[in-house]
């Protein structure tokens, strides 16, 4: 293929097109990252009491500021860190599943990955009376086991078909949700409140201790996920095309599932299954980004933004302090309708 003459005009078109896409990717990611940082910072300053930036900086640097040390250092900072990481993890995991399964509805929360975590947490809280840390550990383990079971049950004739994976996930989720209702029905009123809050997803109990496993998970797994994105992008062209392009499809799929499920599990353990963050972030990030590349990282950033904003809103805007999941759930419902209608009409993916 060496004898071909090059039409300079074509190569110009190709180069400028690629540069344009790269620029847009860069702008969107940097813009989202700045927005996340801004909201993160504001959530440290604002609240029932206002603390000026100087106080916040002093607290972060380890200084002792009257009042702020407790409110910012002990309450707001761990809460904001947890919210940011949880949203980031949910966003990454959600977009990974949606891209891999080529269906914007197939986010891990809809297809039952977090239902195992919910069932385990409810049992841990109501039946075994475990400490929050132990509940988190149990929820993580249960999410991993559930996902593994769904994968195994979808495995047939040397591969996992996307449709089968989705449907079996939904079936398992339906079963586990009835386990959750059963355990709830036998609970004492106070425990029931705790469990319901957990099930909705909230950042109230956020402490560094409870968030540490998530921090480690994100630090270890997010780079792996980003490293896999190139192969994931090739898999968007269909499994066969990707295999022909030299992507080890089944291996990549297993790796993607393991990483995304682990992110999902640790995030769920830290804050409960905050409704719809994994589901909403991918499609919205894809809209913002446009068709210029993988929406996964942008989705992670958007997830962080969504959780931080929704949590702030849930705490201060409504009179009662709601768990953050109530806000994301309420946002999710109309968006779901829009997404269902749109994606089904075009028959398209993300």
């Amino acid at each position, binding site marked *: *293929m060496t*004898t*071909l003459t*090059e*039409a300079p*005009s*074509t*190569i110009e*078109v*190709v*180069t400028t*097109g*690629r540069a344009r*896409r790269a620029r847009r990717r860069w702008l969107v990611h940097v813009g989202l990252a700045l927005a996340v940082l801004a909201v993160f910072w504001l959530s440290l300053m604002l609240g029932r009491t206002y603390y000026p930036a100087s106080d916040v900086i002093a607290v972060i640097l380890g200084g002792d500021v009257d009042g702020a040390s407790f409110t910012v250092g002990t309450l707001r900072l761990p809460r904001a860190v947890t919210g940011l990481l949880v949203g980031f993890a949910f966003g990454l995991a959600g977009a990974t599943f949606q891209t891999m399964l*080529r269906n914007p509805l197939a986010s891990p929360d809809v297809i039952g990955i977090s239902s195992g975590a919910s069932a385990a947490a409810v049992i841990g809280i109501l039946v075994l009376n475990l400490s929050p840390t132990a509940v988190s550990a149990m929820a993580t383990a249960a999410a991993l086991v559930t996902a593994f079971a769904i994968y195994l049950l979808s495995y*047939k*004739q*040397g591969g996992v078909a996307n449709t089968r994976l989705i449907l079996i996930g939904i079936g398992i989720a339906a079963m586990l949700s009835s386990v959750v209702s059963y355990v709830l029905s036998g609970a004492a009123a106070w425990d029931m409140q705790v469990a319901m809050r957990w099930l909705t997803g909230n950042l109230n109990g956020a402490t560094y201790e409870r968030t540490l496993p998530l921090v480690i998970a994100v630090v270890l797994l997010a780079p792996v996920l980003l*490293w896999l994105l*190139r192969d994931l*992008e*090739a898999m*968007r*062209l*269909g499994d*066969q*095309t990707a*295999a*022909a*392009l*030299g*992507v*080890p499809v089944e291996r990549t799929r297993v790796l993607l599932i393991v990483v995304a499920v682990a992110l999902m599990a640790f995030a769920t353990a830290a804050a409960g299954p905050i409704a719809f963050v994994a589901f909403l972030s991918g499609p919205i990030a894809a809209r913002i980004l*446009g*068709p*210029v590349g993988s929406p996964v990282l942008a989705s992670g950033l958007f997830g962080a933004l969504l959780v931080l904003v929704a949590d702030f809103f849930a705490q201060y805007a409504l009179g009662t302090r709601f768990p953050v999941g109530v806000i994301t759930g309420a946002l999710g419902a109309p968006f779901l309708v829009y997404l269902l209608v749109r994606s089904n009409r*075009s028959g*398209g*993916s*993300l």
Partner: protein
Amino acid sequence: MSHAHTLRAEQLSLGYGERSVVENLDLSIPPERITVVVGANACGKSTILKAMSRLLPARHGAVLLDGKAIHEIPTKQVARTLGLLPQSPIAPEGISVSDLVGRGRHPHQGMLSRWTADDDAAVARALDVTGTADLADRAVDELSGGQRQRVWVAMVLAQQTELLLLDEPTTFLDVTHQVEVLDLLTDLNRDFGTTIVMVLHDLNLAARYADHLVAIKGGRLYAAGAPSDVLTETCVRDVFGLDNMVVPDPTTGKPLVLPLGRHHVATAAR
């Protein structure tokens, strides 16, 4: 092109789950020629193509690329030698033509290595060869079926492989676009010596464009060779179970198959 790559199947058996689809197939792909595989529905044509491009593991026997078992060669290395266009590839929503064609560069890039000027050049070449350069910035969703198929061919061309396998590249295209795509593939073969293997449904187009014709029946090789040797009345009757008449194509002299329905047999015999 110092030495051409070779591809052949040796005692190849294939299947899905319990079901066996292909048995004991020996098939050699002549280098730098156009090979067309024909056969009735569900005879295993596509399965053979998948196995030849290491997408489906062999049950017995092997597919040999340059004399080595294809499953033992690193998949990325295979992807730099052999390209495959499956029957229904999926274009991500909104993706632009040049972006999609660029995806064909995947096997030439490492996990960390950046996009290079070589990659741009390969994409530009692929667009030029397939006549899709003026579509480069359009979204693939907006294109017509024929345009879209040319874009997909451009995607595999950007892969810059000397072997090109295509699974029914003309399905869902009207006859004009079918000829357009086949002409394009012939250009590639004549101008650059690309070895082409494709599955086609239309026997007459197959006869016209093939240098080497392979007829598959029930997962076994029925005949292989020059179209005029392979495509006989007996062959069509055996492979497709169709009464027919084969006449020389007035334009090329290649065989032309005229199907005979139940209502036409008598006339033909007369």
